[in-house]
């Protein structure tokens, strides 16, 4: 029930942000459509932990800020590789251990690795990620350990 109400509030907030209408008639229509969507979601048994965007907490936003800086730094590094006269690429497929407990934690870590230019998560299995790195520098285990630690700190338990 709390999940249904949470989803309803989130959906209606999205409706308000996208429409920008505040007339009573249109607001009623918006609430009705949100209620119908929640009803369908409940019928499809979609109301689990991931249905309600409660993962959006302050620690996650701070993590996104840190991630943004990392993304920018590695984007500059990849740009240097692209623009170098002799492109110094030495491609690697490396196994990266991950210490997250929940599925959501794994998703956040794998997506963070992919989001940083220079590294892409290819496959997951056995508590490890298979990561493709563009050069030796992007494959350094220290960077991954740092990111792994931060993701484990922000994941929902």
């Amino acid at each position, binding site marked *: 029930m709390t999940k249904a109400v949470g989803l309803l509030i989130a959906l209606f907030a999205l409706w308000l*942000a996208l429409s920008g209408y505040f007339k009573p008639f249109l607001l009623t229509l918006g609430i009705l459509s949100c209620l119908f969507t929640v009803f369908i979601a409940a019928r499809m048994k979609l109301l689990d932990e991931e249905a309600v965007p409660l993962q959006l907490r302050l620690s996650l936003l701070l993590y996104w800020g840190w991630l943004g800086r990392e*993304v920018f730094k590695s984007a500059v590094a990849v740009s240097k590789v*692209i*623009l170098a006269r002799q492109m110094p690429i*030495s491609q*690697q497929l490396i196994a990266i251990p991950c210490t997250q407990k929940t599925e959501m934690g794994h998703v956040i870590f794998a997506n963070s690795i992919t989001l940083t230019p220079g590294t892409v998560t290819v*496959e997951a299995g*056995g508590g*490890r990620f*298979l990561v493709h790195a563009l050069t030796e520098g992007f494959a350094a285990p220290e960077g991954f350990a740092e990111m792994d630690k931060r993701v484990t700190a922000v994941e929902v338990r």
Partner: protein
Amino acid sequence: MDMSTIDLLRDIASGIAFAAGAVFLLIGTFGLIRLPDVWSRLHAAGIVDTVGAELMLVGMMIQAGFTQATVKLLLISLFLFITSPTATHAVANAAFIAGIRPVRLRRNEAAEVIGETAKKAAKS
């Protein structure tokens, strides 16, 4: 500070964001052409999808100010932030399953992660 100063500062800030975004977009798409195989091109596409696109959107947000347009731009950048790594991962994973391997591969620890699947892919 009067209005024209604020407008000037806003134009300068968004101009910097647009210029930086455009540089990253062009470098990324240039890399898409120049890099040797699909695995290395994933990273060039990553530059376009993350830094280039987000900087452009930030430039537009600065121009829009506190309006509904900024909310929509924030939502667009959130969607790109979540969907672009997922799409990149999907391409990488599909190429991996199809048995395409990077050229001049220096280190390969694929067997440690998937074991049987990797051996099967290596055989075929």
